[in-house]
């Protein structure tokens, strides 16, 4: 019998920094991220009887952390009144990138060609760092959806349910986040 056995005594060493990194990117706060990791280990330990054979320890712990982070967003009103937020910031966003009357790209926001992408010399590590920097610069209300979609690869139905947002708000958030992150990556990586 080769059963997958939980090894709580090794959790911190094996998954501590990983879970901490996930939490840090999602909440952008050191203390909150530390607390989330600690809570994850405790909840996992308490629920260890429910761990199913054959699943991986890491996936299990990551799922517990994910739920903790959703709770954290709720407690901190991160996703409260998304509709109001989006309509208040609509013209500010538009003015940065598009002409207000016809929606054309502004001259200084036109996507430029990313030549460097062609040669495979990209240092992935550096690129990931800039990606994380750009996420940390994103308006906090856009971050949960952006990460769930593009880092965690969740589908839109799950995201709308987890964060309690409408599908039209979902598309507005995805759109703004993508426009912002594209522009940030371009400024900090491709033109650097």
């Amino acid at each position, binding site marked *: 019998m080769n059963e997958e056995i939980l090894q709580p005594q090794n959790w911190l060493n094996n998954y501590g920094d990983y879970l901490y990194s996930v939490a840090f*990117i999602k909440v952008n706060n050191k203390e909150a991220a530390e607390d989330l990791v600690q809570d994850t280990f405790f909840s996992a330990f308490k629920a260890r009887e429910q761990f199913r054979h054959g699943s991986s320890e890491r996936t299990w712990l990551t799922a517990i952390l994910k739920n903790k982070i959703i709770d954290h967003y709720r407690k901190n009103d991160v996703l409260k009144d998304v509709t109001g937020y989006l309509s208040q910031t609509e013209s500010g966003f538009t003015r940065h990138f598009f002409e207000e009357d016809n929606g054309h790209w502004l001259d200084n926001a036109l996507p430029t060609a990313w030549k460097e992408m062609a040669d495979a010399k990209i240092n*992935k590590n550096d690129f990931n760092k800039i990606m994380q920097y750009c996420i940390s610069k994103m308006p906090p209300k856009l971050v949960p959806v952006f990460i769930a979609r593009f880092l965690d690869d969740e589908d839109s139905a799950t995201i709308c349910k987890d964060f309690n947002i409408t599908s039209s708000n979902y598309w507005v958030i995805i759109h703004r986040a*993508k426009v912002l992150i594209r522009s940030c990556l371009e400024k900090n990586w491709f033109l650097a």
Partner: protein
Amino acid sequence: MKLYLFKKNVFNCKHATLLSLKNEEGKISFIEKIKLHYHLLYCKYCKRFIKQSAVINKAGNDTAESLFTNPSHLLSAKTKENIQRRIDTTGQ
């Protein structure tokens, strides 16, 4: 007037890029698809946006994957010690 609205809607990069993201997830309607397609015949910038959006998606997945082998943030020794102590006392 109808033609004016049609043009306003179709030749609108803000709208087209949003449609392109719906398209990326396969959640675009038939009419929207036609609008997007038509827009892209004329707009190289939105074409570029779409290409780069795919690059970003790939990079996002890579970033998520890399966090396990190469964590971006490390718990301090002191924090680790505190957490470990609490785990040990709970574990007994």
